[in-house]
């Protein structure tokens, strides 16, 4: 640990750097030797399912939890044992955490008053933040008299006035309905473009992650699985967990065997009925292939081509539609491929009905292939 920290110090270009972070709750290790470097001005999203330790990590960065081992640096400064207020961070919570007995204005100015900032300066910053977030007409209201979206804006405003380098968001939009979520998402994105400070954003909503992030860190059980840009994560998930987690509707996974036939790799689906063989010649393997091996082939529903065009692809079959889910802009249809459930996305205009039969196909080069045992991408 020591050698790392001294070495890293020399040329740390990061806004937030986390080194070998361990954290135990009552003897249970929730975060294990976690390393994470976040660039200045970057929008980093921590994504993962419930209970994977996202909030815990954020709380560690904020200084709200005492860590078990490791080091946290913010702007090159070791803040591992600093008070939250001395870390140059601000935080926005899922439950808004507004002070219910104070007006919006007081909520915004509380931190500044505590810090002893003078009155005019408080006034200036509050009105600037209020303007930026369209809160000016609401300044004299109490939180109870605000809608969910307004409350969340106040919560963001409270972070804004503090004029810090790093913003931490803990699922700030989870409590809002879908429509508001979309709106505020755009506002947060716009805010980031205006302020250009570092933002660390926790969510379990992958759409939020994909739309907002410069980079996404996908977590599972306290370990970061993949840290990369949204595109890479979407298109080249490093393991089955990431692949399944990202994308809505979710990726289809077909169980099967990876076999070399004529020194060409083939995916043979496990199936009692209709067989399915997929040539993986153009698949960008990252590992050497030796012999046969149980794998899962992941295919995103939107990479499936429907109708005549499918015949041009290496994989093409006629299937029966079981369930149709129109989503307005497009439609998700469920069928069976080699006896396994398989969904695909089509244009709404096709007007599919359960029972319809049609041709579908996909390009194996855009699929992902995972070791069935380890779940790693092959």
């Amino acid at each position: 640990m020591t050698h790392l920290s001294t070495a890293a110090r020399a040329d740390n270009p990061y806004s937030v750097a986390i080194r070998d972070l361990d954290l135990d709750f009552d003897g249970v290790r929730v975060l294990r030797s976690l390393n994470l470097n976040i660039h200045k001005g970057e929008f980093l999203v921590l994504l993962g399912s419930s209970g994977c330790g996202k909030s815990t990590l954020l709380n560690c960065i904020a200084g709200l939890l005492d860590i078990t081992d490791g080091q946290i640096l913010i702007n090159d400064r070791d803040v591992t044992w600093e008070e939250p207020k001395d870390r140059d961070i601000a935080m926005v919570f899922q439950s808004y955490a507004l002070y219910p007995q104070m007006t919006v204005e007081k909520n915004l100015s509380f931190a500044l008053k505590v810090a002893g900032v003078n009155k005019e300066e408080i006034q200036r910053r509050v009105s600037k933040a209020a303007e930026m977030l369209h809160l000016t007409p609401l300044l004299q209201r109490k939180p109870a008299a605000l809608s969910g979206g307004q409350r969340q804006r106040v919560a963001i405003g409270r972070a804004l006035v503090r004029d810090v380098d790093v913003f931490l968001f803990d699922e700030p939009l989870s409590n809002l309905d879908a429509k508001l979520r979309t709106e505020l998402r755009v506002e947060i994105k716009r805010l980031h473009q205006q302020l250009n400070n570092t933002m660390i954003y926790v969510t379990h909503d992958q759409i939020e992650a994909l739309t907002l992030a410069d980079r996404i860190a996908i977590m599972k059980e306290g370990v970061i699985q993949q840290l990369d840009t949204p595109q890479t994560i979407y298109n080249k998930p490093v393991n089955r967990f990431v692949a399944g987690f990202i994308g809505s509707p979710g990726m289809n996974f077909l169980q099967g065997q990876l076999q070399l036939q004529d020194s060409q790799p083939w995916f043979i689906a496990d199936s009692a009925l209709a067989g399915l063989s997929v040539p993986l010649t153009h698949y960008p393997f990252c590992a050497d292939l030796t012999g046969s091996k149980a794998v899962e082939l992941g295919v995103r529903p939107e990479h499936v081509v429907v109708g005549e065009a499918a015949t041009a692809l290496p994989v093409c079959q006629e299937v029966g539609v079981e369930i149709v889910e129109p989503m307005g802009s497009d439609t998700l249809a469920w069928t069976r491929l080699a006896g396994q459930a398989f969904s695909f996305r089509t244009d709404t205009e096709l007007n599919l009905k359960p029972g319809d039969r049609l041709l579908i196909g996909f390009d194996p080069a855009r699929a992902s292939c995972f070791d069935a045992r380890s779940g790693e991408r092959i």
Partner: protein
Amino acid sequence: MQPKPASRRRTQQRYGRLGIYGFLLLSALFFAIPLYVMIITSMKGMPEIRLGQLFSLPGDPTFAAWIKAWSQACTGVTCEGIQAGFFNSIKITLPSVALSILIGSINGYALSFWRFRGANLLFGILVFGAFVPYQVVIYPMIIGFREVGLYGTLTSIILVHTMFGMPIMTLLFRNYFASLPSELFKAARIDGAGFWQIFLQIMLPLAVPIIIVAVILQTTNIWNDYLLGLIFAGSDNLPMTVQLNNIVTTTYGVREYNVNMAATMLTAAVPLAVYLLSGKYFVRGIASGAVKG
């Protein structure tokens, strides 16, 4: 056409509601009778009381007994009624209630948000303490107060009430604060507020519902206390309940039931008023977090 089904259903409901009101009224009667007896007895003359008709209205209502109980009844050499004790009780109750709530709320706050080592153990002991009969610890406590030279002073009785009220107060506030979102606390810490700032500016204003419950409970407990007041308050501060006891056991040939009742009512007046005025908030306050176990 048949009677509308609507009205049939409503009729059934009406009978059900009659049953409910009937039962509630009967229960209310049972609960109210002792108070009724106290009030009417206090307004009767002794000859009328001797007739033994506990429940009949006074033939010739008079407040003489109340006046006597308040300002004339004898307790030993002095015959000043229970008024002196009334002010002593106020002197004891006000600071005790305030202090025990302050300390209880600080404890609850510290226990809910600032988990420090040993906090849970301390709290466990405190909850256990709620079950310890006072009498078991009175002697050592007397020694303790004697050693610090406080025994028999107003300070000591206030401290005693604070300490014996602490288990319940702490439990009450702890449960309440635990029901608040912890993000509130985190947000305040990030905003740079310290232990006391968070407590005074964020948490205490939020605790109003439970403070009301605490005020009610503590006022009642402390006002009604007899034993601790007798032992610790010192001769200058004996609470009203001591005088009440003297009057109730002090009698001429016949016990003056009317004066006794009046004295009893006068003694109970303060907690009664507290309940009458704030019963609504009591239930609300309990609902807001005291019952989360």
